[in-house]
């Protein structure tokens, strides 16, 4: 099964109230040294097996463009993820 991960983040100049709230909370839990936090979405799309990587990426791109990200305030990146190796991603 092919999986595409779409990361959707607020554009850097857009206020991220959520990130602000977390950055302010961290010192209270004793976690020092964090100067900024941005919170976005990680969206995992599972595609049916019979599609090749190019098709999968193209469709994921379309999904991101039309639905997953709001181009007015967000940007997205996407990548195919190798199954069973969540921590070893590459573009």
């Amino acid at each position, binding site marked *: 099964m092919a999986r595409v991960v779409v990361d959707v983040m*607020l*554009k*850097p*100049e*857009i*206020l*991220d*109230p959520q990130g*602000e*709230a977390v950055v*302010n909370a961290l010192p209270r839990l004793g976690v020092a040294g964090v100067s900024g936090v941005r919170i976005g979405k990680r969206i995992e799309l599972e595609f049916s097996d019979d599609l090749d990587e190019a098709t999968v990426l193209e469709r994921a791109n379309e999904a991101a463009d039309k639905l997953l990200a*709001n181009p*007015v*305030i967000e940007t997205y990146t996407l990548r195919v993820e190798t199954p069973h190796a969540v921590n070893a991603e590459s573009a």
Partner: protein
Amino acid sequence: MTNVETTDGLDTVERAVKTADEAQPYAELGLKTDEYERIHEILKRRPTQAELAMYSIMWSEHCSYKSSRVHLRKFAEKNPSSPHMLAGIGENAGVIAVSDELAVSFKVESHNHPSFVEPHQGAATGVGGIVRDILAMGARPVAIMDPLRFGAADHPDTARVLPGVVEGISHYGNCLGLPNIGGEVVFDPCYQGNPLVNALCVGVLPTKRLQNMAASGVGNVVVLLGAKTGRDGIGGVSVLASATFDEDAAESRPSVQVGDPFTEKLLIESCLELFDAGLVTGVQDLGGAGLTCALSETAAAAKLGMHVDLERVPLREASMEPHEVLASESQERMLLIVEPRVLPEVLEVARKWGVLATAIGEVTDSGRLVIDWHGETVVDCPPASLADEGPVYERPMREPADAALVAVDRAETLPRPATGDELRATVLRLLGSPNLCDRHWVTEQYDHLVRGNTVLAQPEDAGVLRLDENTGMGIAISTDGNGRYAKLDPYTGAQLALAEAYRNVAVTGATPIAVTDCLNFGSPEDPEVMWQFARAVEGLAEGCSQLGIPVTGGNVSFYNQTGMEAIHPTPVVGVLGVLDDVNRRVGMGLGTDGDILIQLGA
């Protein structure tokens, strides 16, 4: 701290004098040549970039009311004098005494265009903006209402805009803890490219807590309270980007503002605590025109001067330039004027609520608004020239060409159902109309219970709130408007909107006492639109005069049009009434079995 990158090439007053002939992009900023020349006359030199940004903002239609001002005067002229009116047109919002100790502040405002661009954030920040207006009067915001207009219900764009708008209002209002006690949802193709998102806020204050915007008292400190300042909504002045910015950066300047209701809630609580402690001399909300508007209006209102060290403003992005800081529409900020001796107490209250507070300047007796950036003066002008002395136009007006056609199409000439079957078909068509359908999908996303004083809310004709738990004294509010009526005849249409809101308030058992209005129209540069506007204002002013209740404030929204196609003229009218005892309010449902139904009136 000196930041070489930004001070480099900074357009200071000194530089403006030396480079008198430098070309400036005033037209791109929306200023006419004669307006630009007037700025020269006022300053006796060319404006700096920062000044140019400020004049372009303050002299815009949105801030200066340049097209509507001559007409809005009718409200003041016709207003019945009322001893209960503590603040009226010209203030952030009207304030009306409802008892010996209590007063109510209310106002309706538009956030139409931003809500089309980004429905959720546009609508959310619309709520945030009107709430700060009410707060600036010293009132605790206690409820909101949302008159909305969308395009055709089955149009794909409505499917994008409507859910986003409702979600934005729901999220911001609910998170602030403000019950939503009413509003409107109307569908009409004329709003397709120009949905209307109007928001009303009502607040309550002990009469003695009434606040004032004037930056009075030479030596008093100017404090900026609330969120950090970012590049929100500075799209309008981005042509002023200095050469240090590449094109990418200019492109990425957002015209969208993102709301943070959590910060607004803390801002409300901290301001109220400061007001109650008597620590505030003057206060102004930061709305559409950000610091530019707040600094110039507070300084102008006191007829004194002000000195601001602009680099003290806490920034979200360090690379911001002075004109950007001045133009930023970052939400959730208030400007306070406080005496130096109470500054530590003020900062302590802000700290307690976790709200940023920064002293950024002081009141002077210079009669000028002087703004420095890292020690160099970038603005030096008379504040009233920005706030009160903007251009005023008497725009040409012309009765719409189709007026005769519209008038000919009279009710009597329209086909009517003649048989039972036809009547049945008509009823079914009415029932199937999106304009008469159940509003539950919208209203169940709004908290109407929070604060525990909501006596009537959706789907009632008017919202009713209890203000005094001991006596049961309360208020009723309704907003109404009908663009189709106003299109047929703006004068009568505005009066019908007033009459409907008035009736809706009266039927709860309340006595109507005051009016607010949001006038949503097309382009004032179109003489036909201008005619509609003038007629609507006359109608409303005359109607209020006949009913004996004053217009206490409101808002004008022009340019609601796509190409040559303007929306129907849409005056939205809010009426406020008082009930001695909300326990005796009358709801709209039928009572009990066997009750007698009586029709009153025509």
